């Protein structure tokens, strides 16, 4: 390790620099409120004073795992007339009081277990509790009737009319009397029947995503040899329960999900733990009616709101299921004289493989999310090739173990190394 660089880094990040203000009085005031259970008055964003008063939003959890609603509380009816439960849904506003949002702004609304939170365009807003009872930010759904209590917010000042828009939005929420979900959107109506706020679904439709399962019915899964996983790919479900592969279909969207298992492998795996896991995994897929995705965490819930399965986003699972053949781009001519580099890549469950132009290769990999470790590749079936091609082949294979992260879109895959980024296009 380069000691000089480490010293430079220490000096650079330890140096006096960006001052982040701390408001001690506000921290004491807000902390006392929580400690003593004092009733919080409704706070609407003040747009004139820049302050750093932040209320604790219980939805912000530790260790990067967000709190997700466990069960619909007493504030939701068992069988809403509209057939949809708001708990667990997340929305992005598109219109406020009939007008489009200001360009470049966003307003979000998330329904939890009797509470709402979101982003008003300038401040975060949410709920507060007094002796575990939700006060600010509580909502009640009864069929298609909906009431939302005034919310608690942070109090950052905002320029250029954004604060005004936010104020109108936050003042609209307590005026909501009814909601309608239609065509993937949500409309909130006032007492006069006018649409106060119109939203589109912010919850991903799970059209294309891969997940490593981290809990099934609250229990950590057995990895034998690898952890259970889920892949949603254009209406197809590809799952692995820790022993067998499962395939099926995905219909609906995250707020009203329908997973149908159709087949799979039938390997016999012995052991009580894996056997229980297989049953619970299948039950989770059969029983899931709702999916909540928050940042990189997925939770599947049943109709009663019981969490069935939790998972962490894993692009490797998606890439392996996709089984696409990727070609290294050569737009800048760095990989030979031809239009194509001749270097290909395929991502499998535990290995990468492909061609280098001078033969085939295979390398094992491990990943946590988008952080990857690729081992030294094994060269297979070598072909005679010119010295230039041979040098490029070795350069490519030498770069693989230096890959740090991977970035994936539907048609592009990029392996990021400290020296260079390798861009691949779908073949």
């Amino acid at each position, binding site marked *: 390790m380069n000691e000089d660089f480490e010293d430079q880094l220490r000096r650079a*990040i330890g140096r006096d620099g960006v001052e*982040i*203000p701390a408001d001690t009085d506000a*921290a004491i005031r807000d902390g*006392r409120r*929580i400690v003593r259970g004092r009733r919080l008055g409704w706070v609407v964003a003040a747009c004139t004073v820049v302050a750093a008063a932040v209320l604790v939003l219980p939805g912000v959890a530790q260790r990067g*795992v967000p709190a997700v609603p466990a069960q619909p509380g007493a504030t939701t009816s068992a069988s809403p007339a509209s057939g949809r439960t708001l708990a667990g849904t997340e929305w992005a506003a598109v219109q406020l009081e009939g007008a489009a949002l200001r360009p470049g702004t966003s307003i979000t609304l998330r329904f939890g277990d009797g509470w709402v939170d979101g982003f008003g365009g300038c401040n975060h807003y949410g709920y507060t509790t007094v002796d575990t009872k939700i006060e600010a930010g509580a909502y009640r759904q009864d069929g298609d009737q909906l009431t939302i209590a005034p919310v608690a917010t942070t109090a950052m000042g905002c320029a250029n009319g954004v604060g005004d828009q936010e104020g109108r939005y936050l003042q609209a929420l307590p005026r909501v009397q009814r909601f309608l979900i239609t065509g993937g959107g949500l409309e909130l109506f006032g007492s006069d029947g006018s649409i106060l706020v119109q939203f589109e679904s912010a919850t991903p439709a799970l059209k294309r995503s891969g997940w490593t399962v981290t809990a099934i019915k609250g229990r950590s899964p057995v990895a034998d040899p690898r952890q259970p996983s889920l892949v949603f790919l254009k209406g197809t479900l590809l799952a692995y329960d820790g022993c067998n592969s499962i395939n099926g279909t995905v219909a609906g969207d995250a707020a009203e999900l329908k997973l149908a298992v159709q087949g799979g492998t039938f390997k016999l795996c012995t052991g009580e733990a894996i056997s229980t896991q297989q049953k619970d995994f299948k039950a989770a897929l059969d029983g899931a009616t709702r999916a909540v995705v928050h940042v990189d965490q997925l939770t599947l819930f049943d109709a009663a709101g019981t969490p069935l399965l939790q998972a962490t986003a894993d692009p490797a699972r998606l890439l392996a299921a996709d089984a696409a053949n990727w070609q290294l781009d050569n737009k800048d001519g760095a990989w030979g004289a031809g239009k194509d580099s001749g270097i290909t890549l395929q991502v499998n469950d535990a290995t990468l493989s492909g061609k280098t132009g001078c033969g085939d290769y295979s390398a094992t990999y491990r990943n946590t999310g988008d*952080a990857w470790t690729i081992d030294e590749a094994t060269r297979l079936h070598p072909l005679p090739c010119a010295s230039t091609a041979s040098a490029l082949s070795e350069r490519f294979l030498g770069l693989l173990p230096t890959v740090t992260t991977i970035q994936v879109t539907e048609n592009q895959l990029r392996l990021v190394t400290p020296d260079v980024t390798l861009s691949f296009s779908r073949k």
Partner: protein
Amino acid sequence: MAWGSRRDAEFTAFVADASTTLGRTAWLLTGNPDAAAELLQATLVKTYVAWPRVRPGEAPAYARRIMVNANIDGWRRRRETPGLPEAEPGLPSAEAAFDERERLGRLLADLPMQQRRVIALRFLHDLSEKAVAEELGLPVGTVKSSTARGLAALRSALVEKGNQ
């Protein structure tokens, strides 16, 4: 002195001592002064609430643990900076005016979350690899590899920017 007054006095002294370093940590983790301010304030409130459980002398470490384990990506992705004025024509751009420290902060913000946490704890708080592993609940090997990868990425990015 009533307990509440003593608690407030102790907490006020703690914030006076620790807020600069905590603020710097928040900035390293979020890469954004607004998000850093919110993260810092949320951390201070939680620390105040937990004050009776915090052992004397351990408040800075306690607050730091709250901060680095927070759902930082949730703050970053939802946080926007609306209403910032455009750079006036004819004046040096904000990018041109940044010094190495702020450039580094932005480069750090591009690292994966785990590498950012590890780099902040190792190089701002000077924690050992073992201490970082305990604080983040990771194997020591993962801390080592995250440190190596993060440093390599930063070094490379700094060299690349220096050559532009």
